[in-house]
């Protein structure tokens, strides 16, 4: 039988250490909504999502109340819209109308984000893929809750450099379209290499075509819990350190598994996966960077950071896989800059550069995330940064992503405020030596030799 100390430990994690379930994400397939008539398509999309998700928020709140565990976000992911809109959309405005439908239904069912305004172009772009990508600045500047992602490469296909070039321009254009809000549109836009089909986290969530009609995916969190656990083993060796992280990750993930099963049962939607990510928030004590400091670094970014992050990521997975029957999504430690107070402090102190962040992304999920850069950064430079990150993902057979925010009208040393979970960020310097000739070559980078496993 459960004893008073175990109960107290769980409640301490929830109340003092920010343990929460970060998101319940309902994946909805829109493949059966495809229609060549745009109005009919929008209508079908609206009704399919509304019917599937109308009880999502209420159910999430009930579970939260009954178990006493906060469930921070309730979200929706849909099939990549490039596939759904291809038959009906002739212009970028046509595609943007689908984004507005998604935004409307997101407001009505009460979810805070809806992901899947996406295209998967890791090898090549169809006309519909290209049109969707070109409509992203319009779509993100005329909606509030829609998130967009584009998969630009994979270990199996190589990297689509035409799309990498295009996305550099699209990111800048999105920044320009939303410059009144500190280029907030770019916070809702991410590019991937090896994007997973079942990721519950935004901005990269979409409902892959390999998935069922509807599915519940849950993202857990708990950097604060790991940090507190590690504060009790200061000075101990790596074996003790790793064991502590594993045990803590197990406990955190079990809560996610419970919530996922309950949500699945109550919504009568199959359970997909639990995503074992350490996802920080701007709240003090809910930071991955603070865990790195607890492991023994003065600031995130100091020498040793990549090693510390590698062991953290690995132990989180080792503890988590036993706690859940199905693990998926991104699963690892997130290192966004703006959403993590410890990372912000490290940037301000001069300990953390874009290049060090890139090195860190080799050993963790997911990539260069929520990084504000000067608004006058060239499109080819952004494409170059994306290409580097995609190459890391392709060669290491892992998911990598880039979510950069070129803040129009602002430069290095200034700060940009996004509000809420997105936090705030100091604008980081970018290496401005040109890579234009490289980016302008066109074509694609072939798949690496280790992709030929057949």
């Amino acid at each position, binding site marked *: *039988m*459960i*004893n*008073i100390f*175990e*109960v*107290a*430990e*769980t*409640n301490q994690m929830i109340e003092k250490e920010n343990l929460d379930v970060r998101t319940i994400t309902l994946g909805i397939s829109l493949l059966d909504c495809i229609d060549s008539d745009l109005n009919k398509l929008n209508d079908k999309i609206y009704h399919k999502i509304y019917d599937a998700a109308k009880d999502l928020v209420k159910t999430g709140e*009930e579970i939260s*109340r*009954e*178990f*006493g*565990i906060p469930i921070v976000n309730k979200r929706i992911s849909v099939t990549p819209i490039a596939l759904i809109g291809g038959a009906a959309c002739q212009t970028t405005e046509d595609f943007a109308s689908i984004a507005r439908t998604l935004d409307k239904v997101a407001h009505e069912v009460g979810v805070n984000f809806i992901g899947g305004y996406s295209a998967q172009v890791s090898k090549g772009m169809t006309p519909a893929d290209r049109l969707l990508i070109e409509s992203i600045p319009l779509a993100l500047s005329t909606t509030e809750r829609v998130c967009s992602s584009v998969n630009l490469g994979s270990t199996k296909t190589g990297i689509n450099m035409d799309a990498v070039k295009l996305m550099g321009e699209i990111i800048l254009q999105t920044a320009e379209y939303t410059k009144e809000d500190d280029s907030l549109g770019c916070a809702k836009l991410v590019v991937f290499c090896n994007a997973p089909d079942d990721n519950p986290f935004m901005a990269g969530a979409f409902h892959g075509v390999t998935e069922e009609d509807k599915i519940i995916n849950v993202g857990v969190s708990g950097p604060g819990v790991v940090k507190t656990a590690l504060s009790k083993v200061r000075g101990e060796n790596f074996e003790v350190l790793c064991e502590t992280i594993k045990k803590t990750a197990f*406990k955190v993930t*079990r*809560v996610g*598994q*419970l919530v996922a099963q309950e949500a699945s049962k109550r919504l009568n939607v199959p359970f997909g996966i639990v995503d074992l990510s350490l996802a920080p928030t701007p709240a003090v004590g809910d930071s991955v960077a603070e865990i790195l400091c607890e492991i023994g670094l003065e600031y995130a970014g100091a020498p040793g950071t990549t090693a510390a992050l590698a062991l953290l990521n690995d132990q989180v997975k080792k503890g988590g896989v036993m706690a859940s029957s199905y693990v998926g999504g991104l699963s690892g430690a997130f290192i966004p800059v703006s959403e993590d107070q410890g990372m912000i402090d490290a940037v301000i102190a001069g300990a953390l550069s874009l290049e060090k962040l890139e090195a860190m992304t080799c050993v963790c999920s997911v990539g260069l995330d929520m990084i504000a850069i000067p608004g006058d950064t060239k499109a080819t430079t952004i494409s170059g940064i994306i290409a580097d990150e995609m190459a890391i993902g392709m060669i290491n057979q892992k998911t990598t992503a880039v979510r950069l925010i070129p803040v129009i009208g602002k430069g290095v040393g200034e700060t940009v405020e996004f509000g809420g979970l997105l936090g705030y960020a100091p604008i980081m310097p970018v290496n401005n030596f040109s890579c234009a000739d490289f980016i302008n070559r066109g074509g694609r980078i072939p798949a690496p030799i280790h992709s030929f496993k057949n």
Partner: protein
Amino acid sequence: MKRTIITVVGKDTVGIIAKVCTYLAKNDINILDISQTIVQGYFNMMMIVDTNQTSRHFGDIVDELSALGEEIGVIIKCQKEEIFDTMHRI
């Protein structure tokens, strides 16, 4: 049987258990086990209860116990047992 854990944490004062038990009795909630400790003057109590007989909605019990806690000046939480079981038992 689905069981529920009620925890009470706060400054020790006369009648905490009495008030909580009165509420539970009124709502047909049976107490299966009680344990308590006092740590540095703070009252720490855990009850394992059976909510199968009550006609009340679980969410309402959560809210009413929380309100009762505010009245007494302690924090009362009411949570389904599974969250503790899943976390602490393999």
